């Protein structure tokens, strides 16, 4: 697709997204759209770090940190939503900076497992301590204050529609920031690290610095979604932010196609938000169906659903995952990670015995 067509397609899509709630009467369907949009943004943040060579399982936890910070600041601190928003995002960024400084020193499983543990611990902390409301969570989080408009009108936050537009504004900011980042040399450094961290280092890209930067940025973005979710759902429970959500976020990304960092998550989140809703009648079977779907996608459509649109284009999930699990040490193609460095050097001296060398 040429650049011009991309712009046209993006504008049309945006107009549809803006106009959509006007044509939907049912609050339930608007609610679904809100969930889809929020999940899509969470999946976008997952893809950013995946492209930088880190499989991040902690997105749901930071989403929760954003939500709980908002709940605490508005309920216990008495602050308005609009004041709580930047503070909550800053709290999440700070937590990400501290934990990231420890976590991103390692790639591969050395990162995946600690980030998963983090995803387990955060909801446990929320559920255990009385300050955070224990397993009941925080209830009756106030709605954002009305925004005064010139002429005496106010934008009030009561209907599903109004929250839809609030989320749309936040999501738009995230998407624009992501697009700008991907185009900048930071985005290039991330991609280089994801494709081969050794080669990236040899062109003087510091894995630690760039991955930490990415970790802080995506954590802040996930927290921003949490801030919105706290005000939107008014009640938050620790269980919503657990590792299950982390796995779902990953699935939204993979289902849509990790080669498409913006549209892929939208497609993936749309499908995987609607399916569980449609399967509500048989709730216990829902994870089975979703799980089977993901396995089938990985086997038959490793580039995700969007991979169908543009034949053979790089960005297949299996390749990404394989590379990420190996710590991005190898080439993202056929050259295996073990061929480089230590392992080969160790194996060599033993290899040549018996060749008449003394």
């Amino acid at each position, binding site marked *: 697709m040429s650049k011009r067509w991309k712009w046209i397609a993006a504008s049309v899509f945006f107009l549809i997204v803006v106009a959509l709630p006007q044509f939907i009467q049912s609050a339930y369907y608007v609610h679904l759209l809100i969930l889809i949009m929020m999940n899509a943004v969470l999946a976008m943040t997952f893809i950013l770090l995946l492209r930088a060579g880190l499989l991040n399982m902690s997105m749901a936890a930071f989403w929760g940190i954003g939500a709980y910070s908002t709940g605490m600041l508005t309920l216990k601190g008495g602050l308005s939503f609009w004041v709580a928003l930047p503070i909550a995002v800053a709290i999440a960024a700070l937590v990400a900076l501290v934990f990231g400084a420890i976590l991103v020193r390692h790639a591969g499983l050395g990162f995946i497992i600690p980030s998963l543990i983090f995803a387990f611990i955060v909801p446990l902390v929320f559920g255990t301590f009385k300050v955070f409301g224990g397993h009941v969570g925080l209830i009756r989080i106030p709605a954002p204050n009305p925004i005064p408009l010139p002429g005496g009108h106010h934008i009030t936050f009561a209907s599903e529609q109004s929250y839809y537009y609030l989320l749309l504004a936040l999501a738009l900011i995230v998407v624009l920031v992501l697009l*700008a*980042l991907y*185009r*900048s*040399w*930071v985005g*290039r*450094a991330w*991609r*280089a690290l994801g*494709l*081969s961290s*050794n*080669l*990236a*280092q*040899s*062109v*003087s*890209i*510091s*894995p*630690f610095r760039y991955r930490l*930067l990415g970790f802080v940025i995506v954590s802040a973005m996930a927290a921003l979604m949490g801030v919105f979710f706290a005000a939107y759902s008014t009640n938050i429970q620790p269980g919503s932010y657990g590792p299950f959500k982390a796995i779902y976020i990953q699935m939204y990304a993979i289902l849509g196609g990790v080669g498409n960092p913006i549209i892929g998550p939208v497609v993936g989140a749309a499908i995987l938000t609607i399916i569980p809703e449609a399967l509500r009648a048989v709730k216990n079977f829902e994870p089975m169906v979703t799980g089977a779907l993901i396995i089938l996608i990985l086997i038959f459509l490793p580039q995700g659903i969007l991979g169908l649109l543009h034949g053979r284009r*790089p*960005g297949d999930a299996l390749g990404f995952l394989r590379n990420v699990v190996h710590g991005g040490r*190898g*080439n*993202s*193609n056929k*050259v295996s990670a073990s*061929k*480089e*460095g*230590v392992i*080969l*050097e*160790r194996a*060599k*001296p*033993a*290899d*040549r015995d018996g*060749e*008449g*060398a*003394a």
Partner: protein
Amino acid sequence: MSAILEAKGLTKRFGGVTAVSDLDMSVQESQIFGLIGPNGAGKTTVFSMISAFQRPTAGQVLFEGSDVVGKPAHAVARLGIARLFQHSLLFGNITVLENVIVGFHRKRSFGLFSSFVGTKRAREEEEGFRVKALEILDFVGLGRLKDELPVNLPHGHQRLLSVATTLATGPRLLLLDEPVTGMNPAEMNEMVRIIRKIRETGITLMLVEHHMRVVMDLCDHIVVLNYGQKIAEGGAQQVCTDPAVCAAYLGKGTYDAA
């Protein structure tokens, strides 16, 4: 001539195996320096230690007088040591041109914010990188393949692309790990020609290679390693006729038995 790189007492042990033991060597400026030896002699390990991907067990590596030991690999790259990896290590999923542009990472002069909002000067610098990347691609003869994906290139071209990426970092010292291994004769001649061209631009080169004709053709100075120890050093002719080198490559026992 002055030494651009010096190794003093360089040693690397992996558990009980000593991969490199007490190696002293000095690479002169704008030299082509060869490092040869049978498989497992420790050549790649030496390269890994120079480029700081592995930390020596003991010893020093002085690059232009400053010790690189203990520095992270990306910082050493910033000093001006670039490395061509043994196995075509490329950014396989981005175009040939973008591969080279990644190499300009340390040359950028704009902060995150300027690049982020795309200020005019940041965009101009970016455009400058594209132009320079194309020049480098032309230099190694890959100009017309700039929009290809590296995965689709033949082996010889992939190696040349790796060279182009390392050149983009503006190195003072270029480490080439087996640049011609696995190439057909035509590709090999092309690579040798490019290596000579690189030297003419004033870049010092270190070469690990098994192909002896190429080594003897190119190198001004050769160090021979065997089991991690330096067994000979000197010009091509001198090294060729050294009995210790012959023994290492062909085996002493063979002669005795015959």
